[in-house]
């Protein structure tokens, strides 16, 4: 049995959301917190409870400029030595700092481990720990729906089922080893191979559902595309119902990508306003256009806005062709100026006519957008749940590696395979917090007729 509270481990975690915040916090707890921190900053610190501004350095390269604070045991949240790094927000920066900490010897914190350590060190009692837990588990509706399923055991049942299947193989091997003269069939590499391959495939499918969670956490990317002055910024403003982008009538005003996060259908939706795409001599603008095209390609939904009061131009067509294979809504804008382009011009697409100036047709657009923002539109998996915790991914990944190793060495003597499978079984057990050792014999005797 592992108690997992070995204070020799220094743990690290990203403490704040990686989306929608300009500042993020990465934390360390454990004996080596300070030395790990000092190994990634330019000028070492040692005073507890002082605020320092430091460059975070990875391979002589500054990766962020952050506020760092050292808390000395026992005067910290966990009761251990702790370090808090207040860095710039966003997935990339926080992830880089976090990875750097791991590289310097920190280990990924398990879910709730800071709170657990706090509890173990007598800083908070169990009910407080639970309260912290429910507090940090607040989520959007899709995540919440999934959490309820997870709460009801949909995931742990699957893990238990997989563990049971591993147990069956172990029992088979152990029966063969412990009852060498009984009627236990010899275990063929084919038997092992097919059974373990099946488990392997199943685990990969579960592991991949994490991408759904990530998608939900990161949010849906919606990009507004259109030639200059088609009304992109007006569309964004209409969506945000506030004036964030500067709306002018001079083509090419939005020279970079603006982004804003909205909350639609229980999901985070980031809307990107891109520079108008056209051929230009202006270097600044052409960089903007390149970025705009990349943003379009990376986005999940494109709102292609077209000025319907004039003809379909070659610039419109350029964009139209470029995003041919993307999920999109075509918005025919400026219908208050008279329709020169009809819906029927584009036969099959999601298409809506609006006047952003008068607001006419905007309701229809919102309807279409809401239909598009559906998680099932963005993930390949046919899933009944998705895993929502990196710890599960890590554990499943470990099991996958173990199974891969067994598959690679399928002809090794069986005690190796048994040992590896026991590790896999325990790793699955650790996901749901149950590790047994008595179960192997029970399985052997319920499956095989053995003994003198």
């Amino acid at each position: 049995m592992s108690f997992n509270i070995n204070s020799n481990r220094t743990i690290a975690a990203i403490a704040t959301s990686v989306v929608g915040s300009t500042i993020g916090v990465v934390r360390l707890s454990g004996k080596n917190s300070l030395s790990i921190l000092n190994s990634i900053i330019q000028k070492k610190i040692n005073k507890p409870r002082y605020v320092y501004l430091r460059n975070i350095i990875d391979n002589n390269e500054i990766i962020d400029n952050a506020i760092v604070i050292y808390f000395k045991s026992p005067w910290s949240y966990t009761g251990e030595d702790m370090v808090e790094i207040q860095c710039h927000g966003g997935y990339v920066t926080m992830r880089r700092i976090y990875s750097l900490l791991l590289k310097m010897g920190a280990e990924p914190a398990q879910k709730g481990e800071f709170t657990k350590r706090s509890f173990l060190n007598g800083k908070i009692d169990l009910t407080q720990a639970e309260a912290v837990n429910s507090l940090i588990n607040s989520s959007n509706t899709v995540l919440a729906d999934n959490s309820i399923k997870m709460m009801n055991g949909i995931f742990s049942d699957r893990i238990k089922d997989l563990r049971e299947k591993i147990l069956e193989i172990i029992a088979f091997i152990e029966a063969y080893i412990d009852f060498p003269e009984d009627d236990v069939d010899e275990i063929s590499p084919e038997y092992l191979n097919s059974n373990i391959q099946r488990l392997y495939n199943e685990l990969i499918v579960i592991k991949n559902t994490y991408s759904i969670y990530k998608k939900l956490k990161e949010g849906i990317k919606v990009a507004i595309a259109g030639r200059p002055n088609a009304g992109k910024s007006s569309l964004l403003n209409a969506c945000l119902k506030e004036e964030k982008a500067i709306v002018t009538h001079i083509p090419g005003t939005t020279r970079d990508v603006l982004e804003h996060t909205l909350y639609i259908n229980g999901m985070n939706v980031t809307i990107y306003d891109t520079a108008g795409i056209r051929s230009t001599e202006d270097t600044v603008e052409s960089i903007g256009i390149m970025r705009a095209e990349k943003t379009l390609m990376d986005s999940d939904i494109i709102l292609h806005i077209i000025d319907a009061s004039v003809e379909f131009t070659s610039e419109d067509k350029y964009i139209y062709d470029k995003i041919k294979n993307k999920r999109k809504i075509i918005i025919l804008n400026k219908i208050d100026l008279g329709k020169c382009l009809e819906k029927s011009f584009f036969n099959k697409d999601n298409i809506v006519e609006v006047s952003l100036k008068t607001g006419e047709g905007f309701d229809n657009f919102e309807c279409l957008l809401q239909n598009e923002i559906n998680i099932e539109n963005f993930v390949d998996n046919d899933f009944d749940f998705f895993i929502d915790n990196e710890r599960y991914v890590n554990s499943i990944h470990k099991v996958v590696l173990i199974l891969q190793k067994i598959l690679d060495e399928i002809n090794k003597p069986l005690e190796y395979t048994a040992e590896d499978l026991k590790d896999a079984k325990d790793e699955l057990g650790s996901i749901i917090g149950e590790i047994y050792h008595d179960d192997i014999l029970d399985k052997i005797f319920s499956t095989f007729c053995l003994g003198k």
Partner: protein
Amino acid sequence: MKKDFTYDVIVIGGGHAGCEAAYISALLKAKTLLLTINLDTIGETPCNPAFGGAGKSQIIREIDALGGIMPRIVDRSAIQVRMLNTKGGAAVHSLRMQIDREKYRYEMKVTLEKIPNLYVKQGKVKNLLFNNNELSGVICNTGSTYYGKKIIIAAGTFLGGKVILGETEYNAGRYGEPGSYSLSDNLKEIGFNTFKLKTGTPSRIAGNSIDFSGLEKQEHENIDQNFSIWEKNTVKNGRDCYVVRTDDKVHEIIRQNIEFSPLFKGIIEGKGPRYCPSIEDKVVRFFDKDSHKIFLEPEGNNTDEWYMQGFSSSLPEKIQNTMLKTIKGLENCHIFKPGYAVEYYSIDSTQLYNTLESKNIKNLYFAGQVNGTSGYEEAGAQGIIAGINAALSLKNKEKFTLSRNESYIGTLIDDLILKGTQKEPYRMFTSRMDNRMIARQDNAYYRLSEKAYLAGCITEEQFDIIKKKTLKIKEVNNYIAVNKVKNKTFLDMLKTQNTSLEDFPDIIKKFELTFDEIITIESDVKYAGYIEKHNKFLEMNKEWTEKKIPEFIDYFKIPNLTIEARQKFKEINPVTIGEAGRISGISSSDITALILYIRKIVKW
């Protein structure tokens, strides 16, 4: 006069636990009395005439490393030697020997008779004697009183023993031998929890009535292997075993006569072992299996009795007879002794410390089947631990215990004191080990001999032999790590799957390596990754597992501890946090609650 009735250690029972306990206790210079109901059944092997096999050969080698007697007696009385599980690596290799029952008894008896400080006596203990609430001796049913400072109970299946055969049941310790009833009541009176267990044995049949022609043979292997490293024995004219199979005819007879089975009628209440089911149990539970394997094993060279491994039964003799005669080769067989079931009382082994001393009654030890185990080897293992501890404690020496990680014996005792045997009689399996790649039959001496030497169980000369072997292995390890063949060190060569040390005869010759030394060196290389991982895991948890739980702790005062955990902790009274964590049904959150509480009340 009183001197003749006063001893340091009294061992009750002359079976495998009792012999081992008495032998080692006397060796450790304690004046030891071995009391047995019948002098002529000392070292009796009432079930199959074999020692070793998977999970058990490892125990015997460990007993040998600790200086015990069983391994020598097995070697001396062996009539067939086989190495099982050779398709796997050394972690599962298991030496197994068929023995001559009569020779085993004889060798054990005459050996014990000659041991200084050891006094063997025939006598049946009626009850334990206390003086001012302190254990002081035993009273026998002859009226004699024997005084002793330490008492080891190794009563086997004799406590409240009952033999059951068909519809007949009568009090007996074994077939044809009286049981022990007043001692059993006495133990209950003085506060031991007891419960009923069941075991069984098959019929013995006459060899001259078996038609061996056409039966599958299981031959003696001509391998140079002994259980004991301390003396050399060789099996001459090894004997063969045979395999017969049941078929639907036997199964049909069982199905038709199941009403006569005491097991299914509910006459037998005790729980029997799942790994040793009776033939009727096999047929009923595994009804879709159309045949069961039975081994015919000779019981000795001077007897024509054959043991039928796999055919244990408590059906009436008449039905056993009918069944046997449908089996190919046994059409004309004569039954010497029908199979039967034995029901007996075991004490709850969770009432013991890992020295096998009772937690409630000081100076009282329990070893063997009375603790709910099954098997000669398991009994011997407990006997030696109880014997060593009883003798050492006389001189107030440090207790002698083995850990799960270093030994099968440690695992056995740890399971006994923390999990108990109420579910079924406990037998050792290699799969019970946390890591069988570390504790193997080939390396028992390197794991345990130093401890044994320090405790006084083996002599300086014996320990020198082991030290020399250890040194030699070290030299070889250094040699193979440095020396190369074709740009690759021998060590790296050995790491690959199909390379063996035997592929380099020059090394074997240079260092004069024995078969077992070769296995040890090779296995440590091949299992290195696994061994390292396991040791790392232990190291990581050490901080907690070895912490002692204060004796005055009140489990019912611990907040956040489940009711179940409180009850289990109170019942089993674990000594360390590690022990607490290994109790079945205890979760890691129970352990954290326990740790937290202890941290509050004492300075750790």
